[in-house]
């Protein structure tokens, strides 16, 4: 894998999907990485870049699904075709996708990595939970998704048979999934300033120790952490 660099890319398009926005960036030779990996996106007018999961990876395009929860995400949702923004990735550890009995489980904006995952994995079964019907519109991005809306919870859609679960969503949902499926691969979130292990801002407690989520995750119980993140020139040359 080549070393990620900060690149400038043009917005190819931006569309509302329910409450979220799908931001399409020209790919121009960027690696997409593995489903569950993320990019740091620069945000005009903001100092810290922000992390977003790869949602769609086409030959000419990388797309991110963005939930406008605060000032920076609101700016990203308003970007227009032709504007340039910086991005940096792919970063972190993605999902292991070569599993036998796959099931993708998403909650809310946690659907973001699954359109790409479904594509890579040949459209496995997917269950998605949302708080409102407007948010549930994002399910259209994932073929064959079974969808529920609160008060029904997405964990109720997980079948009682052993499956290899890949999950992404809010913290309470991930804990619930973990309780049902202890070996599920879970994609977590924490505030991130760098995305490559430099700031120690994204630390979470793992096995009683403080660990950087951007280095050890965001997917945990997944692949073992791969260091270094920003590879050596030499390794790059070999890649």
């Amino acid at each position, binding site marked *: 894998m080549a*070393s990620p*660099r*900060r690149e400038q890319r043009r917005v190819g398009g931006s569309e509302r999907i329910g409450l979220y926005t799908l931001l399409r960036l020209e790919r121009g030779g960027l690696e997409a990485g593995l489903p569950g990996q993320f990019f*740091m996106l*620069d945000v005009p007018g*903001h*100092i*810290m*870049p922000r992390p977003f999961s790869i949602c769609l990876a086409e030959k000419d395009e990388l797309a991110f699904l963005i939930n406008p929860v605060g000032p*920076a995400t609101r700016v990203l949702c308003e970007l227009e075709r032709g504007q340039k923004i*910086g991005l*940096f990735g792919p970063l972190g550890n993605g999902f292991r996708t070569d599993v036998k009995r796959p099931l993708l489980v998403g909650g809310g904006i946690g659907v973001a990595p699954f359109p790409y995952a479904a594509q890579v994995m040949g459209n496995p079964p997917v269950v998605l939970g949302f708080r409102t019907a407007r948010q549930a519109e994002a399910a259209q991005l994932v073929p064959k998704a079974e969808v529920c809306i609160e008060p029904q919870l997405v964990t109720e859609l997980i079948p009682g048979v052993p499956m290899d679960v890949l999950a992404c969503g809010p913290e309470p949902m991930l804990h619930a999934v973990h309780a049902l499926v202890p070996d599920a691969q879970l994609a977590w979130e*924490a*505030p*991130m*300033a*760098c995305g*490559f*292990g*430099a*700031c*120690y*801002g*994204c*630390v*979470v*407690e793992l096995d009683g*120790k*403080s660990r950087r989520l951007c*280095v050890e995750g965001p997917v945990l119980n997944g692949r073992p952490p791969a*260091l*270094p*993140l*920003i*590879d*050596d*020139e030499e390794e*790059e040359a070999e890649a």
Partner: protein
Amino acid sequence: MILNASGCLDALTAPRVARSLDIYVAKTITPEPMSGNPQPRLAETDFGLLNSIGLQNPGVESFCAEILPRLEELGMPFWISVGGANAADYARVCERIGERESVSALELNLSCPNVDPAAAGAAEIVAACRAVSDKPLYAKLSPHLPDVAEVATGVIEAGASGLTLVNSLRGLVLDEWTLEPRLGRGVGGYSGAAMRPVALAAVYLCYEATKGAVPIVGVGGVQNGKQALDLIAAGASAVALGSVLFGDLEAPERVRTELEQEALARGFERPGEARGAAHRPSAG
């Protein structure tokens, strides 16, 4: 000379970036492991960044066993930043790390805004470290000193070989709606562009007070070569990049190139020639 600011780069996760520096400075190490402050630890402000990492580190023993050997493999000069709660703490870390020949210098973090103010005076800590180590000792001072130049001359008398100026400011940001602190710890370290004039002032005053006799690493809000040149003109002999690295891994090379150009444009053949230029009586 371009360094990173302590705590703003991990050479093990980003060796390519570390190698683009002249010297790599590791994150502060304390005698015992510290798990740091609660989440959230980061918040953006209008013109800077607020953090409350809280000196999270594995402690000096685990650092020496697991991390130092891998830093040595990088094959580049590096410094270790040293922290603690009292002079004995600092001395213990200095003594332990000072054994290693690979370590070019020790930076004494006398100034972390995210741990309670060190009870011991800065000069006392420096003296205790000087007693146990022959390595170059850089005293990293806080901007929250009534008279930074006085502390600077004090630590130099106590045995410091150089100064690192400055650590982050104490800042607070509240949540837009709940009005509660955005950081788990409440108050945090405020870094970035907003503090640039504060760092410049500290370097200027300490250079004046020390008459340029010791090296000074200037730190605070540097994002480009012109801002690095400003620090050098104020009296820095080297410049460290902090939070700019989070968003721009190419910053060391870019700042180095820009610095050379900005110096040349003002008639200095090398950036180092501009050291202290802000103090020279005007030619015109």
